[in-house]
């Protein structure tokens, strides 16, 4: 394992935070919380850098020409090449349209950012009018995305069933139907019988058990991955 100054600092910092968490008697709490505060401040700065990076990418996107499609993809999507006299003009049209769409996307984002930023600086984010203006754009946009998402999820379920005629496909569709009925509360209103309620209670435990199983697996993976980072086997930072 190659050691460098950044690796040593990262490993020692990680071990220090871990020791301070597991051994509170050492009295390193104050230093630990100060170091965590530094991390929070740095995370805030990195968000600003991330946003700057996003704006930059859209700025570049507006200025760049659309790259040519790779040969393999072009032949797959378009089939045989056009053989008439104006093949270039035919190909240029969709490329031009895509270019306009790309430019419009990026222009809207940059314009929206500038307006929101200037508005926030002048009016402050606590201003009622500003909040209302932002939320009256943000809420409908997010609602529209949710609406699209519901349709996408529906098509995904149908496509999944189309492509998986195996046991897992039937289990998946079966569970979707069972939990749709359970979630609608139809069975609760249909019967007051004790056994029906017991069956519903047992069925409702199944997704909970599945979730716990997945979360336990993820937790184990997270522990091992975190330790590998902490000991310097894997490095997500610059060496």
């Amino acid at each position: 394992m190659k050691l460098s100054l950044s690796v040593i600092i990262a490993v020692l910092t990680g071990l220090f935070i871990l020791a301070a968490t597991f051994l509170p008697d050492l009295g390193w709490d104050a230093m630990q919380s100060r170091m965590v505060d530094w991390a929070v401040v740095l995370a805030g700065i990195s968000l600003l850098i991330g946003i700057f990076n996003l704006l930059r990418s859209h700025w570049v996107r507006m200025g760049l020409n659309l790259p040519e499609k790779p040969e393999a993809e072009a032949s797959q999507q378009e089939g045989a090449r056009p053989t008439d006299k104006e093949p270039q003009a035919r190909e240029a049209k969709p490329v031009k349209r895509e270019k306009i769409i790309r430019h419009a996307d990026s222009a809207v984002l940059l314009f929206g950012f500038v307006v929101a930023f200037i508005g926030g600086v002048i009016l402050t984010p606590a201003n009622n009018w500003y909040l209302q203006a932002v939320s009256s754009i943000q809420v409908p946009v997010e609602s529209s995305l949710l609406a699209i998402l519901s349709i996408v999820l529906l098509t995904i379920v149908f496509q999944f069933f189309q492509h998986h005629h195996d046991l897992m496909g039937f289990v998946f569709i079966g569970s979707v139907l069972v939990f749709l009925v359970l979630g609608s509360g139809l069975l609760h209103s249909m019967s007051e019988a004790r056994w029906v309620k017991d069956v519903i209670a047992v069925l409702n435990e199944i997704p909970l058990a599945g979730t716990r199983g997945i979360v336990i697996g993820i937790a184990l993976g997270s522990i091992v991955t975190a330790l590998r980072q902490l000991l310097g086997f894997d490095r997500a930072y610059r060496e």
Partner: protein
Amino acid sequence: MSGDILFWGMFLLAAIVLMVVFGLPRKKKKNAGSEKFAIRSIPALEEFATRQGYAIESGTRLHLSAGTADMNTQSAAATLLAVTNMEVLARNAAASDRPVVATTGDGVTALLLQSRLHAVYQRLGLIEDYNPLLTQMTGPTPYSYAAGAMPLLHDEHISVNIVTGKLGIEGALLAEAGRRENAFFIGASTDPSGQAVLYPVSDQPLIGEEMFATRAILEPDQPASTASVKTQDVLRIVLCVTMLGGALLKLVGAL
């Protein structure tokens, strides 16, 4: 009581560290019986490894999503894993015309991705080809991240997509955008609702902890990656036996 928990926490961590370190195959044994150290088969990741090779050869691009988790959340480990995965993919695809593109919804992760990518290009002597815009924070909130990443899949001619990290139900939007481009898609999330959505949309299902084996599949000759996957498997079996044993003991009234 709190002291007991801390003691057992330290004990467990020390045990895992020892398992990871001593689980590394020794050099002499590596050639003698490498199948002994092979990890279990994960079809989704194996197909992903094949597809990434095809993508590089056919001049299309790979997209890696590191999710939207902040570094100060429980999903940080999965996000760090995505960063190291990106490094492996970037190394494989660096010399091709269309190197890997990585997106995230977190500023710190974006910086880490950028830093690792820069390091890969520097190490390979391709620094003049490095483009910082290959790693992007496409939006700071889950939906804005998905909305920002969706057009990228079309613009950059993505043919292979992988999601490892925290992604909620908005992952379906990303998968659908990839599907419109006929892109291969696999994904696993630390968020159970995201995992529920990613399961049916993936071309090959990948569940939860399987995402932690990505590096071991992409780099099977790296003993440290294989050892950690094996450690995970052993811990899972120990945990299952403990839980079942505990339940049985409770059933017979011994606990």
